[in-house]
């Protein structure tokens, strides 16, 4: 993969917005919502078999959980008529079970009618509200506003605010298979799967997609983000559909999956954060949430079943990593992680992204100071993790062209086999994790954080992680000369891994070791009140916050680098 950062304006692959799949979808929103509700209903009925009792139980469980949620965990975005709706469902269910005169088939019909109402409501709630004019405005705000801020900070003088010397692309570098994704987006359906570290990711990716000249992607955003007005506007504009993590009932989950699968079959490019939520530990996702991922396999099979066997019906998985020196939410994320994994109680800090004001403050900081972000676009794969060429043909490990449809054949015919597709989903998940590690871009800050933490760990060999993290920061320091030596050793191994194609290295790591370390120290978690790593007056290395150091260290997990210590 070439090392240069891509910085140029791409032509839009589909200049007319009416050709955008997402616009087509929003024009057909009403029918589409209905279609989703209908097929979600079918799949719930499939899952409950022909049994009326099971269906009844499912409806009752859903009702019970929804009432509990409304009572215990209400959000600002929840619609006002929610209570009424579920009360009505309740009275209908009560009535039905009391009714003795109805036959089983008649009862079933009534239950299905209730199910129908619920899937319809869910489908309506999930569906995205893409409005093209909002999208245009948002795009302008993001690029224009951001580049104004950027130039104001970097170019001196009164007129700097109108300068175009720096654009957003100086700040956020896009690398990797940019041409391929553009070509494939015109041929088939793209599913972009990025790593997830920060709430900023969705806006960032939205911007990347627009810079690459691609039509907007739809994506599932946590409903909680719609609580914040700024985000709600952006998300709607960028084509987000809503995922409510509070709703864990079967009917909701089926509707959500159906929504995704049907959109893919419709040809709308989609974005999944396959980790489900932001990485709490700071490490690249190892275990993926397979629910949404399974819809790519389902949609691909459905397209083959419909006889769409050319590239138009093909689904391409594109892994993306977002590489940061600094993650705003790091302190609260790592605390949550430690609370989850450790026996020790850590007190929880508030979420930095909780108010629009804090986000604004962060953005100003981000653009006026220099912390770069890079986004690596990986090679596109088919739904079984085989790389595809520019034409969208799948290739096996030996470069032989293969047909993705073959994976779904039994005795020469495409068939549905839920258990098979479950295994395929696991398989795809593992392939995505592999690709994440491969396209992950190592920064100077990752190097210094990793090395420093491993050195401290080695010095305190007998301690477990939690005691290590509780060490008083004042007692810890690393002698610069030794630190430098260790950094060099790790860096050497990183270069080896790069040569083996197992990871990527940012260009700023191709300079002298002292310069790399300085760069790393200056950048690692640079806006935190307590810095994970600093140089003290004597020139030695100190930490002000062990848990943050641990967080940034985790980014280089999974490469066997800890074996060096």
């Amino acid at each position, binding site marked *: 993969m070439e090392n240069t950062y891509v910085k140029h304006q791409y032509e839009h692959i589909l200049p007319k917005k009416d050709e955008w799949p997402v616009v087509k979808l929003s024009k057909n929103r009403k029918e589409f919502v209905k279609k989703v509700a209908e097929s979600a209903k079918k799949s719930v009925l499939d899952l409950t078999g022909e049994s009326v009792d099971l269906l009844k139980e499912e409806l009752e469980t859903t009702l019970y959980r929804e009432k509990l949620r409304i009572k215990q965990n209400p959000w600002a975005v929840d619609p006002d008529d929610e209570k009424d709706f579920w009360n009505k469902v309740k009275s209908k269910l009560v009535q039905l079970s009391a009714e003795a005169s109805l036959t089983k088939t008649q009862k079933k019909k009534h239950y299905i009618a209730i199910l129908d109402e619920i899937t319809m409501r869910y489908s309506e709630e999930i569906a995205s509200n893409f409005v093209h004019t909002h999208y245009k405005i948002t795009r302008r705000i993001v690029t224009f506003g951001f580049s104004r801020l950027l130039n104001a900070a970097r170019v001196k003088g009164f007129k700097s605010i109108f300068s175009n010397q720096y654009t957003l692309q100086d700040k956020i570098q896009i690398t990797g298979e940019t041409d391929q994704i553009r070509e494939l987006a015109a041929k088939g359906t793209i599913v972009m799967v990025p790593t997830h570290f920060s709430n900023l990711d969705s806006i960032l990716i939205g911007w990347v997609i627009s810079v690459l000249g691609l039509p907007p992607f739809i994506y599932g955003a946590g409903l909680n983000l719609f609580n914040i007005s700024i985000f709600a506007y952006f998300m709607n504009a960028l084509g987000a559909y809503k995922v409510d993590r509070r709703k864990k009932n079967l009917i909701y989950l089926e509707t959500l999956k159906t929504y995704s699968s049907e959109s893919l079959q419709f040809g709308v490019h989609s974005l999944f954060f396959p980790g489900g939520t932001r990485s709490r530990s700071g490490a690249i996702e190892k275990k993926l949430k397979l629910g949404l991922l399974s819809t790519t396999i389902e949609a691909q099979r459905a397209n083959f079943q419909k006889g769409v066997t050319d590239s138009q019906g093909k689904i391409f998985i594109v892994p993306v990593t977002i590489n940061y020196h600094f993650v705003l939410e790091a302190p609260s994320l790592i605390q949550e992680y430690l609370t989850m994994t450790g026996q020790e109680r850590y007190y929880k800090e508030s979420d930095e992204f909780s108010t629009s004001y804090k986000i604004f403050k962060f953005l100003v900081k981000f653009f006026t100071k220099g912390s770069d972000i890079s986004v690596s676009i990986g090679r596109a794969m088919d739904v079984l993790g085989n790389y595809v060429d520019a034409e969208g043909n799948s290739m096996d490990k030996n470069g032989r062209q293969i047909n993705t449809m*073959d994976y779904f054949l039994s005795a*020469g015919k495409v068939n549905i086999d839920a258990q098979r597709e479950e295994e395929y989903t696991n398989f795809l998940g593992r392939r995505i994790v592999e690709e994440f590690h491969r396209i992950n871009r190592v920064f100077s800050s990752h190097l210094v954080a990793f090395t420093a933490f491993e050195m401290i760990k080695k010095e305190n060999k007998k301690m477990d992680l939690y005691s290590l993290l509780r060490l008083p920061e004042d007692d810890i320091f690393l002698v610069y000369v030794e630190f430098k030596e260790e950094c060099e050793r790790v860096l050497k191994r990183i270069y080896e891994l790069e040569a083996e194609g197992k990871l990527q290295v940012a260009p700023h790591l191709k300079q002298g070791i002292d310069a790399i370390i300085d760069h790393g120290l200056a950048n690692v978690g640079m806006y935190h009140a307590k810095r994970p790593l600093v140089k003290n007056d004597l020139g030695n290395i100190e930490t002000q916050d062990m848990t943050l150091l641990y967080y940034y260290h985790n980014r280089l997990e999974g490469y066997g680098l800890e074996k060096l210590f």
Partner: protein
Amino acid sequence: MASKNSSKEKSIGVVGMGSFGTSIANILAEKSKVIAYARRPEVVDEINTLHKVEGLPINEKIIATHDPEYLCKSCDTIFFMIPSAGFQEVVRLFSPYLYPYHIVIHGTKGLCLNLPQGKTLEEVGTISRSNILTMSEVILKETVVIRVGCLAGPNLAKEMYEGQPAATVVASKFNEVILEGQRLLRTDKFQVYGNSDIIGVELSGVLKNIIAIAAGALAGLGLGENAKGLLVSRGMVELVYLGNAMGGSVKSFIGLAGIGDLVATCNSTLSRNFTVGYRLAKGESLEEIMNTMEEVAEGINTVRLMKAFVEGTNMRAPITENLYKVLFGDLKIEEALQYLMKYPFSVDVDFL
């Protein structure tokens, strides 16, 4: 892509016509058309003209070929029945003709060493799990086939050939592979169980060979049934620990492919692994034994790999370690036995 919509039922492929491959081909031929692959032209001719393998008559419906491409094109489901030593090579030979619609089921009870290019086991010394491939992992690594299964269980080829009642396990992560295996193999005399833990089932078949060699050695020393009972149960414990460390589940080890196979091989003079142990105890050297055996005893290679694996972890596997010293060092069988009697096993069963 070749058209696959021919209305004719496709044939079933069998790759490798050793004793086990021949037995399976015979069972398959009761229900399906079978195409068998043999590397040596004289075996192909013998099958096609005389309907015999090594002089033993086989089902007349079995057709032989030495063309991998022809076999892969004619069959959707293929059984690989090759010794582990040649497994990787044969899989590579077939790889260019295999596609994702193929189902591959193998019946090989061995392990394959997976080291970085140009390295040998002697140079590396100890190895980790990623350096060892089970046969299904070889298939996944070398081909594009993903629907992979394996056969394991007490399947002494000679008894199967004679049509005596027996059972086998078809293991695969894919239900459809298990169902396909059952559909093709199940007969009045051959029961087929399913298991989704393919790694556990493969390891059962592989690791029991170590115990089989030891059992042969005990018999060769003229020891009785008490000693054998001791060995089988201690061997089981060791098998479970090693198997767990390699990623198999305990359930599979106490099933047909584990205990079932262990009992059969530890009591049978038909087993090659048992024979190796027996002749060792009678004073022959490993070299002499290997030179005069027609088919490979998988257990020898398994002992070698597992010993290197055990050293890479912090485990103890007394039977494997001592057997290694007998096979490749100069420890006498009697001394190894003494060592085992003194070894401080304190708990009987602690894995359930």
